[in-house]
Every structure is written in C-alpha cells, then in structure tokens.
C-alpha cells in the first residue's frame, strides 16, 4: 500500500470514504476500502465523530454490519450511538509493520474493546495513562486520522 498518503499532503482533513481506497497485494487488486450500502450508516457516523453499532429491537447490540440479529432473528436493526465507554479485552502491540505505510508508527496497538453495550470492538488502542496497555484497562472513544489517511474510531486507555 505504497503511494498517496493524505496524512502528509492534507493533514487533519477528514477524508471522504466514498472515494474508496485500493487494497493491493503486490500487483493484485483485492478490492476497495469503502462503505457499501449495509455499512454506510456506520461511516456517516464516523464523519460526525460518532461510533454507531447495530441495535436490534430485542435490545441486543451488534458490530459490525449485522443485518440479522443472532439472538432473535429479527431484521429490524438500526444504528445507535455508543456511549464510547469500554475496557481493554485483548490487545497486541505490533512491532513489525504490515506495510511501509505503517513503518513510521510502530510500535502501535490493535485490540478488542469490550464496550458498555456488550460489543467487542476491534480497533487501534492508544495508551492514555502511565502504565502500558493491559487487559481490563478502562478506555474511552476518540477519533484519529490513521496512516491510511482515514479518520477512524479508536479507544484510549485512562485511569
């Protein structure tokens, strides 16, 4: 994923997801990072700095993109804003970057946040307290423009 890095060219500008971004494996084109009709709502929320989960009429929250509730089989699911409160469920600190795009950022952490809604949300986790990221750390939602150039929901640990 060499090439255009909007981080350098247009700092802080929130990119337009709808333009898509090519995902390449060497010379092989895999597809686009872009919202599809069933996920547009989520990315519209991200533009407004809101983290949205699918919420079923039975009360269950789902992520990502659930269209059929795995608890009650209903298809009546709507986007509902997360409180943005959670804790670290699992994590991994990446030392070898996947591509040159990420090489300047290592080490950085990706992991699962267990949110107040009961969703396990995969995202970037940043250390926001003195001690290194650990299971059970409290974490809250924030938004960051990441190496891909896209603004993404992330979680930051706190005391």
């Amino acid at each position, binding site marked *: 994923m060499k090439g255009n890095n909007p981080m350098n060219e247009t700092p802080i500008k929130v990119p337009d997801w709808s333009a898509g971004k090519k995902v390449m494996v*060497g010379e092989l084109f895999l597809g686009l990072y872009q919202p599809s009709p069933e996920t547009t709502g989520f990315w519209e929320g991200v533009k407004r700095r809101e983290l949205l989960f699918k919420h079923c009429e039975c009360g269950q929250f*789902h992520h990502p993109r659930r269209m059929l509730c795995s608890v009650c089989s209903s298809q009546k699911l709507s986007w509902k804003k997360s409180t943005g409160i959670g804790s670290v469920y*699992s994590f991994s600190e990446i030392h070898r970057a*996947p591509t040159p795009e990420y090489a300047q950022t290592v080490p950085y952490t990706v992991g699962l946040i267990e949110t107040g809604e009961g969703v396990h949300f*995969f995202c970037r986790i940043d250390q926001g307290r003195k001690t290194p990221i650990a299971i059970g750390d409290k974490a809250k939602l924030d938004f960051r423009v990441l190496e*891909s150039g896209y603004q993404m929901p992330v979680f930051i640990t706190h005391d």
Partner: protein
Amino acid sequence: MNTHKLARSCAIVGITRAIGLKTDKEKKTPLQLVVEACGELFRTTGIDRTKIGALFTGRMPRSYFTLQYSQSVLNELKIAPVISTEVTSHGGGALGTIELAALALNAGLVDYALCVTGEASPIWIDMIGGSANWEADLQFEAPYGPTTPSLYAQSACRYMHEYGISSRQMARVAVENRKWALHHPYAAMHKKGEITVDDVVNSPMIASPLHLLDCAPWFPGGIASAALITRADIAKQICPNPTYIAGFGQWNTHEWVGERMGTWNVEPVKKGPSMVRTGAKVAADNAYAMSGLSAADINIAETSVPFTFANLLMLEELGFCGEGEGGRFVESGGIDFDGGLPFNTTGGYLSFGQSGQGLYLLKEIVDQMWNQAEGKPIAGVENGLVHGHGGPLGCHSVMIVSKNN
C-alpha cells in the same frame, strides 16, 4: 468397535505431492504442481482420469486467481466428474475435500474420488505484505494496520491471561517442532539447527506476545497434494495397505477476528463469547465419536496452526490434555521429540513452513503408516490425527485415519 456408518467406509489408496521452490530456475504455478501430483497419482494407483467420478479441490490458490477453480483443475486433467466443487473453508477446506469424498462414495454416486489441494503463493506474491489484507475485514479491521500475527495475538493475549500460560511454555512447541524439521529434507528450517526456549523468547517481538520464532514462516515455495479415495471394499482389491478414514469432523465459526465474539450460544462458545475456545474441539469430538477411538489411541498428530500458542491450544482442543493444560503438557514432555506424542512430525508450520492449505499433513501420516516417510520414521503408527485450520482460528477440520478396518 463402533457403529457409525461412515467410519472406515472409505480409504485412501494413493496420495501424492509435488513441490516447487522459490529458488527453482523454472518457477511453477499451482496448476503445474496440481497436474504433477495428479499425474503421479494416476500412474501409481493405476486409476486414471476416466475412472474419477468425483473431484473436490481446496480453495483457489492465492496466486492463481480464477473463478470456479475446480473447473480449471478438471479442465486441465480432462476428467468428467458427476459431482465436483471447491471447498473454501480456508485451511479447513483441504480435509473438507475428503469429507465430501466420503459422503459421495457412501451415497453410491461414485467409485473413485479425487481430492486436490495446491498453493504456490510464496513463489509469486508478497505474502507478508499482503497477509493482513487477506486475514482482516477490509472495512472494519484492515484500516487499523493489523498484521496477521497481531490478529492471532488477540487469542494469545486472552489465552495467557485466562489460563496463566507463559511465553516459555509456548516456546517449547517451536523447540520440539524444530527437531523434527532437522530430519525432513523439505522443511524450511531443515538446515537451521536446533533452537532453545531462550532463542524463542529472545527473538524479536513481532506482535506481542508473539516473537519471531513463535510465528510460522512461509514455506519457501509451493505444494500440491492429491489423494485418491474409494470405498473400503474396492480399496482392499486395489491397494495392499489402504489407510482407512476412521472419523472426521468440521466446525466453522467465523471469518474475522472481531467477529468471533459474536458467535455466542453455539458450541464451542455455548457459555458465552470466548477468544480461546475454538471449533477444533467440536470437530475433534465428532471425529473421535465417529471413529470409536480416543486421543489415547492416536500415535501421530499434525496440526496446521501457525503460531506456538495455538499449538498448545490445539493440543487441548484435540483432546491430548485438558482445558488450560497445554502449557504444562508440553513442559512435562508431552510432545518431546524423544518420547512424547509425535506431533508436527515434518517440523510443523513453525519449522516446515506453511503453504496456505493442503493435504500434505495428511500425506505425512499416510507415509508413516506405509513406511515411506521422508523425515524421521515413526514405528508402529496405527492411528493418526490431522487438524486443518484456517482463518484466525475460525475454521477447523479434524480427520482420524487408521491402518485398521
């Protein structure tokens, strides 16, 4: 011994493999390797293309993009099956081809089924750079910059936390696997010498808690495998020592790591979401039940999980030790090269190298039974277990094979 109608109803009467290396002067495509393996199979079994009734292939190789891959294979081999498909549950699909073969044979649709897998991706594409994009959800995971080890590490992190597993216990798997690789001519680490627990835990951190030597290297080339499966009654007529398919099971739960926590209320996560319990246990339980055998009857076991911790986890899920005991099991010599359960006897993914998916692990067990192992021979193999895995611990197939009908 048992009454399951599928148990020992079918047998492997031939199994072949073709290898191409990155360093070969003439680099080979997956299709070339598949043809090589199938050609050898036709010639050695005496069952040629005109007798093949069913064709089941593993998934399309990453380095051979084509829709309807099974069609490409039958087109090249000029076979005309009455039933054929590609089995796509990642590395679990390789053994899935043989499960489908057993079903088609038992249904009386065909007399001979050809099962084929092949990958040559490391020869042709950037597996490390591309890997996370293959393994992660493109919209919801990939933009965070995960690597494949970091996705599996989510389970490693929980496994250590929930059961008190240590890095040194995990490292023991790499140490023992390496010893087998030193005996296998094709193992990626064949000439790299023994390693110690200290070597593993002191190797560079890749994605915590996984060090370099906790991770499987890519096999430096491509491998295709082909197996000929027939009913037990035919097998006895055409093969002096058929390897019977004693039992099998498959269990697939999710595709992306972030999705696995949503699979609650079905086994293996009946009691709630978990990052550490996997479908391998259900697949293994079903395979044991079909075969009438237990883990104590198994003389050799192979798994295709690509990280040290996952091998410990699989030793638990496959029934060789209890839940949470994987670390203590290997520490107390459970998989020792000298005297333990023969486990990953080609060197495993950690030292033989991984080739995406394939039947080559099954071939190792059959080779041991037929006294034609390429690596270290193991005496008296009666029953063997092979575990095919794919996705981030998402797809699991288990097959138990036996010398005995």
